[in-house]
Every structure is written in C-alpha cells, then in structure tokens.
C-alpha cells in the first residue's frame, strides 16, 4: 500500500521534473536560435529556400481553405442577418471575423499541420541519420545552419499566409453574398470599410499571425531537435508538434485577443 503510494508520488515527481527540464531546454534552444540567426540573414539564400518549402508550398491549402471559409461565412452570415433585415452588414461580418480571428488562427493551424510537421520530421530524421552530428564534426553549427533559417522562414511566411487567407476569404464572402445571393454590392463594401479599422483590426491581425508564426515554428523545430533518433521517436515528435502548436495557437489567440480588443 505504502509502496504503491510512494510510486505514484515518484511518478508525479518524475513527470514534473521531466516537464520542467524540457521547458528549460526549450527556452535555451529558443535563445540559441535567436543568438545564431545572424547567418540566416547574411546568407539569405538559406532562408529563401526554407520560405519556399514552408511558405510557397503551403499556398494552395491556405488559399483554398480561405476561399471556402469565406464562402461559408457568407452563407451562414446571410442566413442569420436576413432574419433581422440587416443583410447589408454581411460585408462587415465576413471581414471582421476573418481579419481579426479566422485568418490568423486558421492559417496558423493549417501552417502547423502542413509546414510544422514537415519541419519536425525533417530535423528529426536529420538527427536520426546523424547528419546533425556530422555537421558538428565538421565544425558547422547545426543551429545556425539548419535551425535558424527555418525559424526565420516560418516567422516571415506566417503573416503573409494569414493576410492572403483573409483577403481570399473576403473575396469568397463577396462571391457568395453579392454574386450568388444578391446583397447590394455598394452596401457590402461600404459597411465593411466603415467597420474595419486599419490599425485596430488589420494590424492586430498581422501582429497575431507574427506571434503564431514564432510559436508554431519554434515548437516544430524544438520537437524535431529533441526527438529520440528512432523511427518511433520521429513519428511521436511529429504528432506532438501538431497537437502542441495547435493548442498553443488557440491559447495565445485568447490571450492576444484579451489584450488587443478588451484592453486589459
């Protein structure tokens, strides 16, 4: 009885110590990435290559999802608004929900599952096949050469992807609302323009997506770097990347929204 109780307490302690250790390692890793990011700007070609892999190749999924999300918002928003006879407000509904929330958040979730998982798998495999150790043997710093360019590529791509998501989403809402259902064209745009403020809505959305970009890429890189160098370890790390970064994005979104729009 006592043994089992002690084992349970020991188990808890083990988890806590492990968690704290991993968190500390993640912080040191993040600092190391920031300190070694000089090379990713001096040899910008390295970063450009990673922007291609995580940004340009994510374009299709971002644009198609953005279009459909905007179209669904247009349909659902119209259904509700027309009950109150204010279907002219459809434009501001679609634009505000996309620019403030859905654009940054959904783009970050898609980015986490499309690019984040790929980054984790790639770095995990590089570690498993001892490429990272080989670099260290050749006196090439793997953090500066492999990790930092991927980090900055993610941070640069994320706001651009989120902005494209919002823009194409507004276009999708326009397609359904104005072209398909027949909401008045002028009212759609003018209500939208009077409701959406550049600094308060558009810029806050961009800031949000920058923060999400940092969070998602940092988590993906850390999980890859920290993965046990086995096939199983890499597969677990990839799963953890998607789960952790999605949760982080949603939690950060709540925090940022509370600060930005409630002014706490």
């Amino acid at each position, binding site marked *: 009885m006592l043994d089992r109780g002690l084992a349970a307490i020991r188990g808890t302690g083990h988890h806590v110590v492990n968690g704290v250790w991993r968190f500390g390692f993640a912080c040191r890793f993040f600092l190391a990435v920031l300190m070694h990011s000089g090379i990713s700007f001096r040899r910008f*070609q390295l970063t*450009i*290559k990673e*922007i*291609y892999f995580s*940004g*340009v190749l994510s*374009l299709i999924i971002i644009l198609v999802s953005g279009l459909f999300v905007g179209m669904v918002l247009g349909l659902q928003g119209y259904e509700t608004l027309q009950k109150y006879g204010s279907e002219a407000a459809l434009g501001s509904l679609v*634009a505000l929900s996309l*620019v403030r929330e859905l654009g940054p958040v959904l783009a970050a979730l898609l980015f986490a599952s499309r690019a984040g998982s790929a980054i984790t798998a790639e770095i995990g495999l590089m570690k498993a096949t001892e490429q990272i150790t080989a670099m260290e043997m050749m006196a090439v710093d793997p953090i500066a050469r492999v990790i930092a360019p991927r980090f900055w590529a993610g941070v*640069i*791509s994320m*706001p*651009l*992807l989120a*902005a*494209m998501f*919002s*823009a*194409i989403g*507004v276009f999708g809402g326009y397609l359904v609302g104005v072209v398909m259902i027949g909401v008045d064209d002028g009212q759609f*745009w003018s209500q*939208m*323009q*009077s409701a*959406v*403020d*550049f600094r*308060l*809505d*558009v810029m806050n*959305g*961009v800031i949000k997506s920058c923060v999400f970009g940092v969070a998602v890429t940092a988590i993906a890189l850390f999980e890859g770097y920290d993965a046990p160098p086995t096939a199983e370890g890499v597969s677990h790390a990839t799963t953890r990347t998607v789960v952790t970064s999605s949760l982080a994005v949603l939690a950060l979104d709540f925090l940022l929204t509370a600060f930005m729009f409630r002014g706490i």
Partner: protein
Amino acid sequence: MERTTLDLWVGLFVVAGLAAILVLAMKVGNLSTFNMSESYTLQAEFDNIGGLKARSPVKSAGVVVGRVTAITFDNKSFRAQVSMVIDKRYQFPKDTFAKILTAGLLGEQYVGLDPGGDEQILKSGDIVAKTQSAVVLENLISSFLYSKAAEGDAKK
C-alpha cells in the same frame, strides 16, 4: 531546384502576401477613405450620451470628419464629457452645434456637428458649447404616454 526559379517563387509569394495586406488595408479597411494625418481635439458636454462609444464617428453633413476618443463623467456638472479628434482639413465655427444622432433605427450612434455662422473657428482644446443629448427611447415613450393620458383627461 534552380536558384533563380526558387528566388522567383519566393519573390512572388512575398509580393502576393504584401498585396494581400494592402488589399485588407485599402479595400476591406478604411485606410483609403479615412486617414487622419493631422488632427485637433474638441470637447463637448452632453446631458446624456445614450449609446455613444469611444471610436464612434463624428460626422458633419454626413461626412466623417473625426472620431470620439474618450468619454468621461464630470463629477462637478454631472454631465458626460466627450473628447473628439477632428481632421485638420475640416474647420468649424465657434457656435457649432453638437448632437448625438443615430444611424438608422437601431444603428450605432454618432456625433453630428451642425456648423453655425460665427466668424471665429474652433481651435484645438476648445469646448463645443451647444449640445443636444441622445434620444433615449424610454423617455420618448413615457413622454408620449403622458401626453396621451393628458389628452384623455382633457376630453373628460
């Protein structure tokens, strides 16, 4: 992949992303229609501001000329103090009349400025002296009911 093709794709990607931000600013947002580069502040005291909020528009003749920046309650006069920033391009005479109006039946409330005929213009920090409060629906209904009741009494 060739380095030049890679550069081309990444360049296109960045340009498209910046263009999306520009579209959001110009077409979706209000940067193109309302851009206050230089502005001055005005104060006004109202008996009742109704549903006026900070960031509500200030309009004159239907044109947005500024925004409400802050609303505070004055402890001495027991009235609401509304601060607004007005675009420098628009000047108003000293005897301008400030009203709280409603856009549509249930729309948002805004401050309407009716210019008077004074020679002097309002400067930064000035107080708009003549104001009219928001119409509160309950007050409207109760005064209507009282007048109806008074009519009923008069008939008897």
